């Protein structure tokens, strides 16, 4: 599956979030590909879901599920919130 993570610049926290999501994916036995992007570039990118921190989620409009992470450093929270979306 393919995940898009979003932050203000698209290479700092979004990249860390993407790596954490990929790690969680491996734990559940799924290979996750993805891309870290900025707020201006997420539109039109094919993906299974989008993840971003809560304070910028309100700016994201998409027909794909958007997962809001309150605390990017809390791996438990990331895991709880993304695990329902994990699939092959």
């Amino acid at each position, binding site marked *: 599956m393919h995940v898009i993570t979003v932050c*203000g610049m698209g290479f700092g*926290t979004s990249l860390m979030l993407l*790596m954490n999501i990929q790690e969680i994916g491996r734990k559940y036995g799924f290979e996750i590909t993805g*891309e870290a992007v*900025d707020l201006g570039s997420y539109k039109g990118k094919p993906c299974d879901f989008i993840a971003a921190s809560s304070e910028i989620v309100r700016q994201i409009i998409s027909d794909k599920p958007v997962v809001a992470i309150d605390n*990017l450093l809390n791996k438990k929270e990331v895991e709880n919130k993304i695990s329902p979306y994990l699939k092959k």
Partner: protein
Amino acid sequence: MVNFLVEFLSNPTIVIGLVALLGLVLMKNKLTTVITGTLKTIFGFMILSAGASVIVGALIPFSAMFQSAFGLTGIVPEDNALVAGVQTVLGFETPMIMLFSFVINIILARVTPFKYIFLTGHMMFSFAGTMAIVLDQLGINGWTAIIIGSIVQGVSMVVFPAISQRYTKRILGSDDVAFGFWGSSLIVLSGFIAKKCRKKNSDENDTWEKVKVPEKLGFLKDMSILMGIVMVIVYVVTAIAAGKDVVTGLSGGKNWIAFVILQALTFVAGILILLQGVRMFLGEIIPAFKGISEKLVPGARPALDVPIFYAYGPTATTIGFLCAVVGGLVATFLSPLTGVVVLPGVIGLFFMGGAAGVFGDKLGGKRGAVIAGSFLGFAFTMIPALCYPLIDVTRYGISGLWFASTDAIIVGVIMKLAGMIFGLGA
């Protein structure tokens, strides 16, 4: 054949591609991952260079207008654009310093109590470029520059996170991660000032998080929008001050106002191209760095980019940013006293101001957040104005850009002054 190898391998893009290749092979990646990673790194770096030339191109008429209108040099503080712009000259030193500073960082994290791994990639790149520029100005190039630059950068990569760790821990409520960002010292100082200015009767309710702030300004979080607005204003005001004749001379006969608006938007588009390149090459390199460091220094604190703080005070982030813009504008209007005009560096004000707001709010309440944000914006803009004469980037054919990151400027200025004491450089 030898000619081909020399020219091919000394190309900056290929150097950085080889760095990625080496890392990916050492990490025992699959062949397909190695090929993808290496090529994407190369493309990313080429896109970055293309963005830099668009930015530099859009700044040439701007600098001419500014000079003619005000008789002063106008600069935009933006490290990535500046460093990408000098890659044609320092394209061997920069990626090599970036690579070896990471090696030094790992060694220091293993053998000293400074257990930090700096993982903010674009800042590793901009700092490496800053090192290459400062050393070049001292007459030091090639491998000597790479060795000195890597050591200075490697040390900075653990020292700056260590300086801010006390406050980082307090804001995040956790000691597991650190602050890896070349503005951390200024943000921490803003927080410290906010703490000193805390109201006497202040309690835990004295925080912006208890205040509802309208979400109308949310669209500015896409920083290209804010930057577009600011740059169009800056270009148009400068064009009017320079006068129609000067601008028409620069536009080659095209309508002068249409010309400057398009140049301002071209500048922002250049930044977006540059950032797309940064994104592409970091997307490959940083996961490799993270993997290597986790293997070699288990349990070290990853030092991360500034947005980790925003979740701990979303409202204070907005307040801090708005106050930083105000503080920055005050500094822009005062900077001519130093002989150079520092224009608003939107990216820096946005990201650092937001963090200063969170630090200020946590340490100094509502008043603290306002003071921290305003101080940060003012200092962030004033520091380049004061340090500008020490490092000359115009000799690389770049006008209108200068360094932004406070920590990199501090280190660069110390190196330059030390070099001057030893009689190095012109």
